[in-house]
Each structure stands twice: as C-alpha cells, then as structure tokens.
C-alpha cells in the first residue's frame, strides 16, 4: 500500500456509514468516519459507554460495518486486550481499535488504559476528546478546559465554570513509553491521515488523541466545528505532535500564537469568562506553548508572562521536548 499523504490518497470506502444519530456538525463523527476509512475492513471495533455507542449502535443496527462490541465505560484498554489475544490465537491480523471518549480515557478508563499501555498490548486506542461527559448531558471531565461552563461546573454567583486545567493525558501515555502516540486535529487533514496510517501500521500499543468539538457541549455553531479545531491549534489550546519509539516530534507549529480569546469567542461555554480568568488561561497556555515549541520565538500574546519561559514541565526530559 502506498503511503497516504493527502485526502486524495484516502480510501473512499466508508466503514462507518451514514445514518448515525450524532448532532449536526458533530466533530466526533468527522474523526470516527475518517479513522474508519483509513483503518479499513480488517478492523475490530470496541466502543465503551459514550456518545459514539448511542449514536452508532442501537440494536438492531450499527453504523460500523466491521465487527463491533460494547460492554461498559471504563474497560476499553482491557476488552481490546482480550479481543486481540483471542484474534492472535486464531491467526487474525485485524486491527483492534478502542474508540473511547475523554471521560472513558482521562477519568474512569485510565486504569485499564494504563494497564494496556504498560503491557504494550497490540491495540490502537483512540481518545475522542470533546472535553466533557457529553453523552450524559455535558458534565465536567478531567479533559474539560479551565473556565469552561458545564452542567457540573455551572456559572454561579461565587464560582464561574471549571477551576482546574485540562489533564495532560498525552504526558501520562508518554510515561508508558509506547511505540506510538500522537495528537490529531480534524482541521489538519494531511497530518491526521498520516498519523492514523502510522498508528495502523505499527505494532504494540498505539494511542491517538483527537480533539472533537461538540456543538451542544461547547455551545458552538454546527458549521464552525472544523474551524474551532483549527483555531485550537493556532492559539495553543491544542498541539499537534507525535511520540514515536520514545522520540517526540512537533508535526505542526503555528508561526504566531493567536490570543486565546480568538478561540474562546467561538464557543458559548466560555462566554461568561472575565478578564482575570482569560489571563489565567492565557498564562497557562503560554507555558504549554514554550514547552512544546521552545522559546526561540517571541510570542506577543505572552509578553506579560515572560517568566513562563523558564518554567520547566516535570516531564519535559522524558518527552524529549528540550
């Protein structure tokens, strides 16, 4: 098979067919549809409790043309381990993929995920990150960004939105030293394709982290889903990189960091944020930016946070981001 470089090289055969029940403009559907196109028919899918199971697998039908299994919320790393063990014993080379949400990955599924990564199971784990428990009606998860409104981080008179910053799941995965881990954006098409293809080709534990904007959860316009994902990268709210056999590599570096407000203003979940909180988020972002991209280039939006350049991330060495 020749290497996929652009959209035009992608297979046109849909393994995740039309007719699913996702909201109009669902970013997760964009990601799943394209991941399944690249993984192809020789794939076995496990989906834990999530929006994905509800929108795509309601007895007696599913949108996946591949074998499909669902059981519970917290066990993607474990069930996929079992499936792969059985298929290996039966001589099957099928890609076993777990398609989990951020709640199922960052929070309730972290233990089983860590177990699978530590044992270097031959599975592909995809985290479809819409930054909250959207299936149950928009509750906060460890992936929800600072300041965001959710139904469990409401904008109250004393506390406004989430007070904690997003968990760095990629650093946790990197600490397991997997053969491959990458962060993806649905707005960076060619980068997305290359990473899914690379993950498919590798053996052992592979992890893909995809940002999937959620129209009702992020209170955004359905047409803006891809644009929001793009703006996340330009503001540093999302970074595109991969870790391959212990080496980390940035796959896309924006020239100039856009102010976080350019990202926030596209979404109702941040509408309430006042200057203090926006500055706090911007400061956190500047630290993240310098960690990932180095501090050789001045970023005007970070001018007030000069000290951030000297802050070292505890996993910096391990991540090879020096």
């Amino acid at each position, binding site marked *: 098979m020749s290497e996929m470089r652009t959209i035009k090289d992608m297979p046109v055969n849909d393994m995740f067919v039309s007719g699913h029940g996702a909201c109009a403009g669902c970013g997760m559907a964009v990601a799943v549809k394209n991941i399944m196109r690249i993984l192809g028919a020789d794939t076995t899918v496990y989906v834990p409790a999530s929006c994905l199971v509800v929108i795509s697998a309601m007895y007696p039908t599913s949108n996946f043309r591949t074998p499909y299994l669902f059981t519970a919320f917290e*066990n993607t*790393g474990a*069930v996929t*381990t*079992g499936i792969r*063990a059985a298929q290996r014993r*039966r001589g099957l080379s099928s890609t076993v993929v777990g398609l989990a949400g951020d709640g199922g990955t960052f929070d309730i599924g972290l233990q*089983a995920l860590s177990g699978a990564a530590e*044992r270097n199971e031959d599975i592909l784990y995809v985290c479809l990150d819409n930054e909250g428990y959207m299936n149950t009606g928009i509750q906060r998860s460890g992936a929800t960004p600072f300041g965001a409104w959710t139904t469990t981080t409401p904008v109250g008179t004393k506390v406004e939105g989430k007070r904690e910053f997003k968990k760095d799941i990629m650093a946790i995965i990197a600490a397991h030293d997997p053969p491959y881990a990458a962060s993806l954006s649905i707005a960076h098409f060619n980068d997305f394709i290359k990473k899914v293809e690379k993950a498919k080709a590798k053996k052992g534990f592979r992890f893909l982290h995809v940002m999937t904007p959620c129209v009702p959860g992020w209170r955004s316009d359905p047409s803006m889903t891809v644009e929001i994902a793009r703006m996340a990268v330009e503001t540093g709210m999302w970074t595109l990189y991969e870790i391959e056999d212990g080496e980390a590599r940035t796959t896309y570096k924006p020239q100039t960091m856009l102010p976080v407000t350019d990202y926030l203003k596209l979404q109702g979940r941040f509408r309430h944020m006042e200057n203090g909180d926006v500055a706090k988020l911007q400061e956190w972002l500047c630290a993240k930016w310098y960690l990932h991209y180095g501090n050789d280039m001045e970023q005007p939006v970070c001018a007030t946070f000069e000290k951030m350049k000297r802050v070292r991330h505890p996993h910096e060495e391990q991540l090879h981001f020096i």
Partner: protein
Amino acid sequence: MKVMVISADHAVAYAAKLARTEVVPSFPITPQTLIVEQLAEFINDGELDADFIPADSEHSVMSMAVGASAGGVRVFTATSSQGLALMHEMLYAVPQSRLPIVMANVNRSLGAASGIWVEYNDSMAERDSGWLQVYVEDNQEALDATLMAFRLAEDRRVLLPVMVCLDGFILSHTVERVDLPEQEEVDRFLPKFVPYNMLDPSDPKLMNPIVPPEYAMEMRYQLDRAVEHSREVIAEVDELFAREFGRSYGGLIDTYRLEDAEYAMLTLGTATGLARQVVDELRSEGKKAGLIKLRFMRPFPFKELCAACRDLKALGVFDRSASFNGGGPVYTEVAAALCNVPTTVTGHVAGIGGRDITPEHMREMYDIVEKASRGEKVRPVTWHGLRGDME
C-alpha cells in the same frame, strides 16, 4: 490417571489446563492466588499453550475475558470476594452476550467486617447475574466440577458462563488426594472449542449494542429460558462425566440417606461433608435423618427439591451468608421452592466470616430440624455458634 495430593486451588488449575484453556486473564487475590500462580507456571513451563494476561484489576480481568471469549477462544479465570464484587458490572455482560466463560470463585467474605476467610456473601450477591453457579464439597469435586463447567457452558443449548464456587482455605489451601484424569480422557469429554458468536472481520457481527425497550425484554426471557434449559444439560453432563471418569455428582442436587428420612439438612460447600458424618451418627442412634447437597444455586433446582422433600416432615437449610432480617439466601429460595410442599423449612446460618463449623454445630442444626419434624415450635432461623442469645 495420576493420583496427586494437592489443594483445591491447584486441582482447579489442573482442570483449566486439562481443558486446554487458551486465555487466562488474572489478578491476584487471597485465597484464589494459588490457581493463577499454578496456571502461570504451566504456561511458562510450556505445559499449557495459553495467553496469561496480568490485568490491572478484576474489573479488567472480566473485561478481558469478555473480549477474548467474544474473540473466539476458551477463557478461564479465577477470583474471590472483593475481586468478584469489582467484576460485578462486567459479570452481567457475559450471560446476555452468551459467552461460555468458566471462572472459579474461591469463596471469601465480602467486607466490611471482612477478612480473608470463607463466607458465601460474595458469590450469593451474584446469583441473579445469569451465571450458573456450582458449589463443591472437596478437592476432587473442585477439579471435576471445573471440567464439567466447560462442557456445560459450551453446550449450544446453554452458552452461559459458569462460576465454580469453592470454600476459601477450607478447600483452597487444604491438600487432599485428587485423581488427575489423563489428557486424552479429557479431550474425549470436552471437544475442541468452537465459538458461537465471534468478532471476526471476515464475518462482521454487531455484538452488544445499546438495546432499546423494544428488544430487551425478549432478550431477558431468552436468557431466562437458557438458564432453565441448562438443567437438563447439567444432568447429561454428569452422566457423560461418570461414563468417562467413573465419578458422578447427581447433577443439580445430590442426596444422602434420604430415602426413608423424616428430616434432613440441605447444605452446600464443605459443610456437606460434615453433615454426612453427622447423618451417619444420627442413623446409628436410630434417628431418621438425611441430607440434601445443593450443588447448583443457578439454575435453582425447584422441581428436584420438591421431589426430594415430598416425604420429609422438616428440612433445615444451611447458609454460609446472611440476607439480613430473613435468614440466608439459600433458605429464602428453598422456602419459596417448597411453598406447595407440607415440609417445615428452617434456616441455619453458620460459619460466617470463616468461623469454623464443628460437628456440634451441625448436630445442633439437626436437633432443631428434628424438633420441627415432630411439630414442635422452633425458631425459623438460627445462627449457630453465635455468642449471646438471639433476639
């Protein structure tokens, strides 16, 4: 056949090896550990060709078991107590998905007020999960019941998981003479595993999606019927086993000196062996005492019990766990089964948290049942070996 002196944990591990188990997800918990340690040894010594998966928790163990069984191979695992409780969520996925997983549960009390000693409150809490449950009396039965569990689980009329329950320490860590069958005999008894439903990209199947109200009820009834129909398969497997190995266990229940008995105890697990001895003593005193050994808690032997108790004036039911303010779970179910039989049923809770059950305790149970058989008023439920007067 080879004669060995081994613990019930090791006997179970030998059974899983003889069954040519292919995937063993595992997580250690006392007093189950000897089973998975022994299997790890078999695998690392090349005596068993299987994947040993060291999981991060029992929840993951059962998740892996589901994945591997759905992936089309024979799966065995073992757990105990808190481990079984942590599996609870995943246990329910197995029967409805009709995956024939076999698991040993080494009975141990479930906390709080927990220790590492035997009590049945771990497995009894799972009796409505759809798993078939068999309780064994000694190490030989632990081995034999595990072998039969595979045959039963994989029968196309059943396709249900089976939990083999054995007393922690009293069996798990006690060595006894065990006759170990030859591999060829076992291969004749237990055919090569052929999965019914399987995740295979060459024949894609949708397994276990969200099931809306339009279908769930029919699926539950289908499961209800499968558990019911396993009754006849249990009897068949017992006969088949007897033909191959010369040992028979009676199927759902077994009886001892019950033919002309006027009163009897119903026991399960290791208490049965003790009860046999007490029955012999009582018989030698001229008393018409008998014994019913409950082997399967699921499927529950409603019909068999009614038939067995037809001529009994009173039946005492032993429980090694409590349902709270109503005796134990076995008592409750037996009483329901016998509601149309004129036998008086009494409950007897003993051996809680691993408290040793002595011949005196068992004798005390029989004495109460004898009184009940004479029409005397007795407590509906008695806790034996309890300090302080019962309320």
